């Protein structure tokens, strides 16, 4: 019984952690793409700053953000290889500014509460 409770708790924690992380990842990706990157380079850049993201999460996320108009992309050759480079769009920059304001406001509120 104790093991089952532990298992349920760890599952619950994992789900809550993922929920908490989901929104933050979008802010991190949008902010990092103020500078142009292709998928793998972006993942490395985020990891260097302490934000590890699985490839299977990051690559579909980039396509989704692009389809929402928050990112622009273009195929270009680099090191004799064709790569898809992403960059924050005008609309994306506007949304990022709003998201950052919201994040700062929530952060200060949480600090006061916790």
């Amino acid at each position, binding site marked *: 019984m104790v093991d089952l409770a532990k298992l349920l708790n760890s599952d619950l924690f994992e789900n809550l952690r993922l929920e908490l992380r989901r929104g933050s990842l979008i802010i991190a990706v949008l902010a990092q793409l103020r500078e142009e990157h*292709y998928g*793998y380079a972006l993942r490395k850049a985020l990891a260097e700053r302490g934000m590890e993201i*699985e*490839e299977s999460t990051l*690559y579909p996320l980039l396509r989704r953000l692009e389809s929402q108009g928050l990112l622009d992309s273009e195929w270009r050759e680099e090191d004799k290889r064709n790569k898809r480079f992403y960059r924050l769009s005008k609309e994306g920059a506007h949304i990022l500014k709003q998201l950052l304001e919201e994040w700062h406001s929530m952060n200060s509120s949480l600090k006061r509460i916790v």
Partner: protein
Amino acid sequence: MELLERYLQAVRAYLPKSQQEDILKELGENLRAQVEDKESELGRALNEDELAALLKKHGHPLFVATRYRQTRHLIGSTLFPVYWFVVKIILGFVGFGYAISALVLIAQGKSILEVLAAIFRFSGAVLPTFAWVTIIFAVLDIGNNKFRLLEKITRDSNEKFDPRTLPALRPASRSPEGKPIPRYKTAIELFFSIAFLLWWVRVNPIRRLALFMALGPAGLADKIPFQLGPVLETVYWPVILLTLVAVVQQVVTLIHPERLRFYRVMRVISNTGSVIVLYLLSRADGMLVLAPGSTDPDGFAQVLPIVNMALHYTMFFTAIMTAVECFKQIRLLFREGSHPKAAASPSV
């Protein structure tokens, strides 16, 4: 890097068709960049175990592809590939059942209207089937979202996933010529081959339908003004034989759509035979002759040369098109025979 191509091939199977090429091109480039990064770190090429470990970390192909699917409101992206696969299988079986029953009606000598009604009933049967399958999967999806069963199973299979057990590369997945023959295409061809065979051996409703399509309402008249000329009697058995060859090829291709060599050899045989038959027909003086007891023999005698000329040119152009198709299959046979590895080119 063959393992990487096999991995991408496995991911492709679960991706929506419209986005396959684009997603795989990008995913392939990202994975290659990751491999190169790792290799420059180690100062040597990755061995198979290291590459397998890297791909395993990237995730099970189903799990990876699922992330690319858009969120669906009725059936979630996790269950959607399974749902779509089941829908296609069920619709295929229902369609096949109706095609068989239509052919049985034709063989029984039922009227054209009854046969057409049986075919149109298919659309009536498809909708409830589609609705039931969707409802069942929607309920399963609700259960899955509540208890996260599939997520646990996927996580488990992701942990057990070994990229080295992925299937070998399929030949020429990049070119449409190297892909397995789509089953729906073969099923349609099989239906028409059997219908043609029944027409040729003089099953009445089919013959009347064909005459109606060729001659309009006059084709449905009790006294049909034309009948087949002697040349058609000469090619009667060769045509039956060629159609049976086509039927055998289509049945085998329906069961094994990946057997391209068999498909091509059989196509070359039936196309060569068809070109010979069509050549004989196009050289004949008249494919149709006046039927005895016609109500207006003089009038139909004036129309007959025009009908025969139209048939002559139709046979001639069909012979050219069949010969071109035959050469195409021979060229592909030689290419695949002399460069079997070239056919297994990377899919992205």
